[in-house]
């Protein structure tokens, strides 16, 4: 242990002297032992970012360090928890301190009193190395927690136990004397090792039509959702947390609203995961560092989140991490960097912003784990560009790294088109690599359908420009019909009601069939036109508007049949009327 003294305090930044520390060592500052991290070393002075409010600290108070980096506890008990940015369980803090968060609390991340039922999967004499699975514990209803040998440890099993243990009790011993436990620690800023990364060939299905069909995300991929306030970032992130087909969800509320985190807390235990039919909370861990909680802990919160995500990946799970919002994280870096009086880069952000963002997103990936399983971490970061201006540094630096861009659009939001994802601005670079999967699962005509829909939407954009000038009546009949079909694609297919029980989640099959019926109607309309019908005859076919009802119907296949029949009926009437 090293001991020194406070030299200077300026907001969350404390300068200490008389202490030998390494970069990113954890230090305890002042008489209350507030937790902090070393971020700079200048001669005999060590500069510390403190995770808690520093009011009342005095120069001369003690500073101590054990020369260890900031670590998280990894073991059973993580899921269903809600942590602050440095993995302190908020429920425990509430018991200790009441309804308001006070400083100086030292609490264990994992409960020490719970005895987990451990089933060993190795036997005495087996040779094990870092990352190997030595046994399992039923952590929640949906997740079996695989107990791993900490990376870097290896040896022959000398002793292995079976039965009920707490996370601190010894469950086995290696021949070199290393004691195995249900829990191990890992530094948050150091990516966990794996054997190799795999190409992104499997989609992370989100249940959102516009995403799965037009801009798909791969398991192990990275995506950014930028958008101005009120455009639905948080609703989109929450929808992803609810319905994406990852097995474990890590939701990092980084510098966002307290009430929103509470909503997640109240809602998730009651919502049912469409993939497992169990409450969503069973697979979720929340990390909440709301905007008014200490800024340095906000900086740490995304690392805490991604380390937990990697840990479940190493157990062979598909993990999705939502970070809402990475802009607040970048701002935390800016704030600390400005307190450190560093030379700023663009808009006051530290010059290392780009490399920090890249490092973070690079921790995503679909990998072969040390135990030869396949696991993945998918990262979806919300970005909150000031004034909705995508040219600002955080958005731009993020876009250089991520492969999927879901652009939220304030205009769409104000037209109440939700999800307000702009179909012309957004893109996915996984479209090609995922195509085989979709073709196999959803049918050979998948890309054909998608391309048709995209073409329609693009043509609509051009036609709209003309309509703005001369009105839609001036367009040729066929183009008027095109506009109507594009509108159907927008309103019946792209729009999705996140607050409707049925519509909130759309399976690949439903997504495809919905698009199919719209494009089927398109074909019918083109036929009618060829036979001499006018655009207004087609637009006035009322039963086509019933397509929207398919979205809200649990038995969508039956509904599609009904709607199709109704439309066919009406088309016949039109043909009769026009004598064609």
């Amino acid at each position: 242990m090293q001991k020194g003294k406070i030299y200077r305090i300026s907001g969350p930044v404390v300068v200490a002297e008389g202490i030998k520390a390494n970069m990113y060592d954890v230090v305890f500052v002042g008489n209350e032992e507030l937790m902090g991290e070393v971020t700079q070393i200048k001669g005999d002075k060590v500069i510390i970012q403190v995770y808690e409010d520093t009011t009342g600290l005095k120069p001369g108070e003690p500073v101590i360090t054990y020369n260890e980096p900031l670590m998280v506890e990894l073991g059973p008990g993580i899921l269903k928890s809600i942590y602050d940015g440095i993995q302190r369980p908020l429920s425990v803090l509430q018991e200790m301190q009441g309804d308001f968060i006070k400083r100086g609390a030292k609490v264990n991340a994992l409960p020490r009193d719970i005895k987990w039922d451990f089933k060993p999967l190795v036997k005495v004499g087996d040779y094990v190395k870092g990352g190997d699975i030595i046994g399992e514990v039923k952590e929640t209803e949906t997740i079996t927690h695989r107990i791993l040998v900490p990376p870097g440890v290896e040896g022959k099993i000398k002793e292995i136990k079976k039965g009920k243990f707490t996370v601190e009790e010894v469950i086995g011993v290696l021949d070199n004397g290393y004691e195995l436990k249900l829990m191990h620690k890992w530094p948050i800023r150091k990516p966990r090792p794996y054997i190799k990364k795999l190409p992104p060939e499997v989609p992370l299905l989100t249940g959102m039509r516009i995403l799965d069909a037009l801009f798909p995300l791969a398991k192990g991929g990275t995506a950014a959702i930028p958008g101005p306030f009120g455009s639905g970032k948080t609703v989109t992130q929450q929808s992803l947390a609810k319905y994406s087909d990852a097995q474990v969800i890590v939701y990092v509320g980084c510098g966002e609203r307290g009430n929103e985190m509470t909503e997640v807390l109240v809602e998730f235990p009651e919502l049912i995961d469409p993939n497992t039919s169990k409450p969503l909370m069973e697979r979720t861990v929340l990390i909440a560092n709301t905007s008014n909680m200490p800024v340095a802990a906000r900086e740490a919160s995304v690392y805490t989140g991604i380390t937990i995500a990697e840990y479940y990946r190493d157990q062979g799970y598909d993990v999705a991490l939502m970070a809402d919002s990475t802009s607040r994280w970048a701002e935390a870096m800016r704030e600390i960097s400005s307190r450190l009086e560093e030379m700023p880069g663009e808009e006051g952000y530290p010059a290392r912003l780009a490399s920090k963002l890249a490092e973070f997103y690079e921790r995503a990936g679909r990998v072969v784990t040390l135990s030869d399983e396949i696991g993945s971490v998918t990262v979806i970061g919300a970005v909150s560009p000031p004034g909705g201006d995508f040219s600002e540094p955080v958005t731009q630096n993020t876009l250089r790294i991520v492969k999927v861009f879901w652009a939220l659009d304030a205009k769409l939001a104000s037209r109440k088109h939700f999800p307000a994802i702009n179909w012309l601005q957004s893109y996915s670079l996984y479209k090609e690599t995922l195509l085989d999967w979709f073709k196999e699962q959803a049918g050979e005509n998948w890309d054909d359908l998608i391309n048709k829909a995209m073409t329609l939407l693009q043509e609509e954009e051009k036609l709209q420009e003309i309509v703005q000038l001369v009105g839609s009546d001036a367009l040729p009949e066929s183009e008027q019909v095109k506009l109507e079909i594009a509108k159907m694609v927008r309103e019946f297919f792209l729009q999705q009601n996140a607050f409707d029980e049925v519509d909130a989640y759309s399976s690949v099959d439903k997504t495809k069939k919905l698009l199919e019926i719209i494009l089927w109607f398109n074909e019918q309309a083109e036929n009618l036109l060829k036979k001499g019908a006018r655009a207004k005859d087609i637009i006035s076919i009322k039963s086509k508007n019933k397509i929207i009802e398919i979205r809200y119907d649990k038995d969508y296949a039956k509904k599609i049949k009904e709607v199709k029949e109704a439309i066919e009926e009406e088309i016949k009437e039109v043909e009769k009327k026009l004598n064609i």
Partner: protein
Amino acid sequence: MSFKEYKTIRGIEGPLIFVEKTHAVSYGELVKIRLENGEVKLGQVLDTSKDLVVVQSFEDTTGISLQSSVRFLGDTFKVRVSDEMLGRIFNGRGEVIDGGLDIVRGEKVDILGSAINPYSRTPPADFIQTGISTIDVMHTLVRGQKLPIFSGSGLPHNDLALQIARQAKVKRQEESFAVVFAAMGITHEEAHKFIKEFERTGALERAVIFLNLASDPASERLITPRLALTTAEYLAYEKEMHVLVILTDMTNYAESLREIGAARQEIPGRRGYPGYMYTDFATIYERAGMIKGKKGSVTQMPILTMPGDDITHPIPDLTGYITEGQIVLGRELHRKGIYPPIDVLRGLSRLMNNGIGKGKTREDHKEVYEQLYTAYAEGNDLRGLVAIVGREALSQRDRRFLDFAEAFENKFVKQGLYDDRNIEESLELAWELFSMIPEHELVKLKPETKKKYYKGFKGEE
């Protein structure tokens, strides 16, 4: 505790005083600065080290010199809170200015407050009736929400704030309701108006007022909202009251933040505002909410004027990212003589869905809101077209929506300063307007809802 007086001021810059050779002074400690003429000013430690302490003065630094002396009080800024504060008026530093006696009873509480543990919160879901149709129906306010008013210079946001303070009530009348009003950087004239209005309508009895005037020092402005919120938290969580906090004008607050940041020679963020403005705003706005197992609540309505009516300006922008929606005042509506000039197309209440519907307001509320929004948006869009092609060129249907938009502004949005409409009245008003549109065009309303409430089509066929 050492109460040594130091005569070691090395320099003064704007509101900042640099003091050398002190004992170990703690961060955030209060400071008294004694001028040569005996006058005493209050300040706070902003940066402390063995060699140099930076003190930020809450008051004007006029008269402070290198010969002035400095005393560190060993404690942070605290305010004495008690229910005696109701009906009283304080300055921006929390001193009584209504001529009455000082507050002596009650505990002294740190004004910085602490973050509510998200685990302790309950999601806000109780409707607050403001008596203003646009807010109640279109941007519903719920207890524990933070819903700002984005205004512009010259718009009647203060009248609106007063009207809300006067009329706001929760459905169950037996619960006690209080208003904490904090004015930052407002003019003497405005302050006078506020006080008079509070006194005249009897609203003062259940209000606590903090006034920081335009002539008061900028650094005091950073204290005022925190005093207000500390008081509000006390009334809400200790005295079980439902407290509405009105903060006006947050733009003045942000200007002070920038002024002090510049004086400290900090690296500025966007448009010269400090890089930590988001976090700073959050420490104010996030002090709203409801706590599990506590009866009271803190609801916030901060008011800010958007410089140049620009909603992307850092002040409204950062606010919008923290608050749960916004009410936007429109200059065009104001020019048309419509009060309150609430532009419903730009506003939003994020927590609205939790607070409306059967048992809370009325079963048709959500549908009515959506239909009003869509119909008004459509009518409003058509206005642009009318300017080009003329009204005559529009179809019958389009003309109906155009007329609807007009009527919506004149009957629904427009209401008197003392016109207190309950939610049923506001919803009925909406249904009257719907009669301008044939039933089949009202697509956002469900058939069963229309059956129950639609009053029949009263326009021309």
